[in-house]
């Protein structure tokens, strides 16, 4: 069975590389519509990574919420704000070099931190398979307060967004 694990491992690394590449594209591509599509690819890549971490409920929720709803919103916004076909304006401003330098520096810093420190790895690290029942139990028992607060927050943002975006605002 070890060959199988190697194949799966190789698959996951390929998936990670694919997502990083898609992320770079999402940030640099000139046409905004293509950027949004690359971002969707990143999201699906990340859902795959969650699956490799045995968090399959989270992966499905990620696809459902992000790719289903948030991407729809983003693309709706792009469609409504872009005039038909003038997507040739340069997308990046003067800060490019400075931002690139900062990015490289912070990348190196974070990577060294994450490699150097000895994390308290549990012995049964990767084997734990979480069932949806335990997840629900945790969500509605230990973390019920944040759960309710989040629902209040969602309602307020919903109403707020509608008021902001309404066409004939009586301001």
């Amino acid at each position: 069975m070890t060959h199988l694990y190697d194949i799966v491992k190789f698959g996951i690394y390929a998936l990670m590389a694919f997502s990083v590449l898609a992320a770079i594209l999402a940030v640099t591509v000139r046409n905004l519509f293509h950027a949004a599509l690359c971002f969707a690819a990143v999201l699906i890549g990340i859902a795959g990574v969650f699956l490799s971490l045995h968090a399959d409920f989270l992966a499905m929720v990620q696809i459902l919420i992000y790719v289903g709803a948030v991407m729809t919103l983003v693309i709706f916004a792009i469609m409504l704000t872009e005039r038909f076909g003038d997507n040739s304006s340069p997308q990046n401003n003067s800060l490019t070099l400075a931002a690139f330098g900062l990015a490289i520096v912070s990348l190196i810093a974070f990577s060294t931190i994450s490699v150097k420190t000895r994390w308290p790895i549990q012995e049964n690290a990767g084997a734990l398979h979480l069932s949806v029942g335990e997840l629900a139990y945790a969500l509605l028992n230990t973390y019920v307060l944040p759960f309710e607060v989040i629902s209040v927050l969602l309602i307020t943002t919903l109403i707020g967004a509608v008021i902001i975006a309404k066409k004939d605002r009586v301001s």
Partner: protein
Amino acid sequence: MMEKMFEVQDPVNHDTQTLQVNIGPQHPSTHGVFRMNVVLDGETVVSLKPVMGYLHRNHEQIAENISYTASMPYTDRLDYFNSMSNNFAWALAVEKLANLDVPERAQYIRVIMAELTRLVNHVSVIGFLLNDLGAFFTPVLYAFREREKILDIFEEVSGARMMCNFLRFGGIKRDLPAGTLERIKEVIQNFPKFLDEFETLLTKNEILCMRCQNVGVLPAELAVNASITGPMLRASGVNYDVRKADKYSIYDRFDFKIPLGQTGDVYDRYYCRVLEMRESLKILQQALRDIPVTGEIISKKMAPFVKAPRNFKPPVGEAYGRVEAPKGELGFYVVSDGTPQPWRYHVRAPSLINLTILEDLCIGHKVADAIVILGSIDIVLGEVDH
């Protein structure tokens, strides 16, 4: 870049730019070659300019160069759904011009044929309206099944299903073949059964009611001012039917009612047509009961011209013959200068006049409604562009 900052439009104008769409001559549901220049804001129609003339065949100019009888087959091609009522109107006009009398039996046969074309037209129009609403061809094919039975009778009588060319001035071309009246009686017996089934399929259908009620409302005074005629006018509640107003031919002998709607929206136009079909069936039953079994079929004064239509020279003068065609008041205005060719020949096309108010009905509605309103107006491009 600075000046870009200061040209700020007022915040209320529509930010999504309006969409100018050509629901063009080649479109699945414009009932022929008819273009609508629609400006949309999102889904709602802001302005709608009809563009016509793609099927203009110079009909009136041709009629001024050929004899009176020769333009009878051309009237078939005006509103190619009801060739018999087109012939009826043209025959009436010339009979008024040359004051010909029409024998009894010919009158009855003319009325029977006219009412059969009304059935065919109304059934097909409801089918096409349902097609625009999205029902995938089922109502149309039920309607066409009934239409086939009636077209078989036309073919038996006149020789052609749609281009009948059957009426002549002073009567009809040839008498009915044997057994035709029995076949007509049989069709009329089965029609109400089909109509009830058709109504259960459509009239109470919630989606149809949602899509058609209070859509494209035509107020009564706008209808009268725009000289709309036919089911559209009666759906808005105006009691005007040329058969009752003019009492031409022998329509005064039949008792039938005129269905009137209240709000004048697409639903009322649909249902007025269903009720009109039921009235036509009443007329047909009475006509079949009273038709004289024998009798000549063309007036004596036209005998010499049967074999030589080009010698027919009506006296100098003008006449306007009109008939209640299924689409509205179809009229023919003809001026004669004594020669075998008419001097001036004009067709009052009901579809064209009913189409003029398309924009007023569609403003403010959605794109889907504009198509349905066009379907309910019931136009045939042959008549609109004649």
